[in-house]
């Protein structure tokens, strides 16, 4: 079990920079999510940590030891691939036992260990089957078995649920999380699915274009995004962003927009120019006499709640409101935002402006 520290890690592929200056720490026993859209460098980061790619510069520490230039086989980690990469010419038993054989463990000991792992994963009955005919879930379990059998310092998983169908993914996510909790091993998990990341992760790193946008516990990231990208990437529907030209005073508790003033968390820094106001759909309320006017464009019924899409002069806003509240398309209404949950961004730099609400979160991001 191990702490993993990444310092100013960078990877160039010719002229293309896949990862630049990434720095973050994964604590011992954490379930750590690398989240981002495809091509953001999350998989490259993971592959560098695993030793499948050499970093262009920067350091990777596993348990305090710098391993950036070491062979994958010397890092004592396990990797679960998206397509599972089970050895097709071996049966389940041989697949799970393969990492042990490389360590020179005896046949009898390997057999014993493989059977123990199979019991843990509930796949004892398929041990002697070829991997070719297995279902997606069983392949996933065999891949996990091959990873955990060696009791490595850390598990690296590259979208391990990506190849499963939606229904089964949910189930496997729970199983994975339960397995992690039982073993307590440091796990680094790459995904592009923000729901998966928030559901399973102890901590999340959000990456975009090779840059770490924000890093922290899921709720901090969700409530207090550090950049407009994180605001737009987390949450479904994502955070609403209203753009306007204006000035944010330092130390103020109100922000004026179109002559309507909104209560905001006390600002700790000011800005002038293009400003963006971010608010989660669940913090938007429809009130007929509120100052900011909006026209209802569409409604989506989701059972207990509904998503109402409204058009304002500053862009579209989605509100998540109780489904019993009557809303008709085409009507004009007013919007009120929860004061404590607003984030102001400098739209030029896309960074969040520090306030009483997010200063604790941004301090370590």
């Amino acid at each position, binding site marked *: 079990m191990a702490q993993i520290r990444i310092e100013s890690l960078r990877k160039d592929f010719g002229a293309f920079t896949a990862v630049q200056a990434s720095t973050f720490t994964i604590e011992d026993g954490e379930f750590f999510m690398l989240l981002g859209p495809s091509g953001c460098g999350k998989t490259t980061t993971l592959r560098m940590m695993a030793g499948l790619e050499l970093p262009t510069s920067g350091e990777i520490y596993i348990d305090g030891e710098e391993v950036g230039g070491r062979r994958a086989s010397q890092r004592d980690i396990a990797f679960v691939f998206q397509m599972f990469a089970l050895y097709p010419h071996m049966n389940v038993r041989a697949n799970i036992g393969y990492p042990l054989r*490389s360590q020179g463990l005896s046949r009898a000991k390997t057999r014993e260990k493989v059977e123990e792992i199979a019991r843990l994963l509930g796949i004892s009955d398929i041990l002697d089957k070829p991997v070719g005919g297995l279902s997606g879930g069983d392949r996933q379990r065999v891949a996990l078995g091959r990873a955990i059998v060696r009791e490595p310092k850390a598990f690296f998983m590259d979208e391990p649920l990506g190849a499963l169908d939606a229904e089964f993914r949910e189930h496997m996510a729970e199983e994975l999380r339960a397995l992690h909790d039982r073993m307590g091993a440091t796990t680094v998990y790459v995904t592009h699915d923000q729901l998966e990341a928030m559901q399973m992760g102890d901590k999340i790193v959000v990456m975009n274009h090779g840059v770490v946008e924000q890093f922290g516990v899921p709720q901090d990231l969700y409530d207090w995004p550090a950049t407009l990208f994180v605001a737009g990437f987390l949450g479904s529907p994502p955070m609403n962003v209203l753009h306007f030209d204006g000035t944010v005073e330092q130390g103020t508790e109100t922000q004026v927009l179109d002559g309507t003033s909104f209560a905001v968390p006390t600002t700790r820094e000011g800005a002038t120019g293009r400003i963006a106001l971010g608010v989660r759909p669940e913090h938007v309320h429809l009130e007929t006499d509120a100052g900011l006017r909006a026209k209802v464009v569409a409604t989506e019924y989701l059972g207990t709640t509904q998503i109402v899409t409204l058009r304002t002069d500053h862009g579209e806003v989605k509100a998540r409101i109780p489904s019993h509240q009557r809303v008709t398309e085409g009507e004009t209404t007013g919007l009120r935002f929860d004061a404590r949950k607003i984030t102001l961004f400098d739209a030029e730099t896309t960074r969040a402006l520090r306030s009483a609400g997010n200063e604790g979160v941004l301090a370590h991001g």
Partner: protein
Amino acid sequence: MSDFSVIAASRTQKWVAGTLVVGYAVITLLPLLWIIATGFKSPSDAIAYPPKIFFEPTLEGYVNLFTTRTRQTAEFLAANPPQTWYEEIVRKYDMVIAGPSRFGGRFMNSVIIGFVSTFLSVFLGTLAAYAFSRFRIPLKDDLMFFILSTRMMPPIAVAIPIFLMFRALGLSDTHAGMIMLYTAVNLSLAVWLLKGFIDEIPREYEEAALIDGYTRFQAFYKVVLPQAATGIASTAIFCLIFAWNEYAFAVLLTSGTAQTAPPFIPTIIGVGGQDWPAVAAGATIFLLPVVVFTILLRKHLLRGITFGAVRK
């Protein structure tokens, strides 16, 4: 089932397809059958006109192929009655067997040169193809093109330079020389074919093995090689067929020690003219190894040809 189906062929279609396939098979196999049949004919039947379809089979051709014979006087023949069935056959012509012919040696030359050069082509080709497929190599595309370009001219165009080179290096009429030549010619085909196969094998298999504690080379031969077996088998067939059948260079560069069967077979001279049954018998035996090799590996061959045609 209805009368019309998109997937199932109709009766007529099946008949047409069947007729075409059988017709094509007959056309391609007829010369082969003729050679095999000629091998079992007597010399006079072999050159009979009109050609004989039904004849009395004899092993004369095969005996003549494997032996040298001399004519003897009637007294000698009377004093030494034939000991074996094949001696009996040659007695019809007042001859006795003087010793084995050179066919066995030539055939072995073909086996040695064909199989060793095939092994080398596939062995070197697999390593090169793996490197081209997996590693970032400077000028990779150009190198691949250069390798391919060695096949762009007819090999016989370089016959004279190669002949002179071989003479200067003392490689003329040596096994090593012929093995090198066939390996060189086959290598480009092997690299290209095998690179296609190895490209199809997901890298994750090796990466999994690397992480599971194996070295790059162990990952290569324990994980990649079994996956590439199909490609290797079909490449081996193509290389063997070329090396086995090659005639032009063999005629030019070999005359004795390292002569392969293709230039030797037509030189089998009988008494009073070409011994066609012996030639045909030689051709028949010469066909066997490639036929057996191909039949053994035919599943791979079929998959090999269509491999990579469909992207998964």
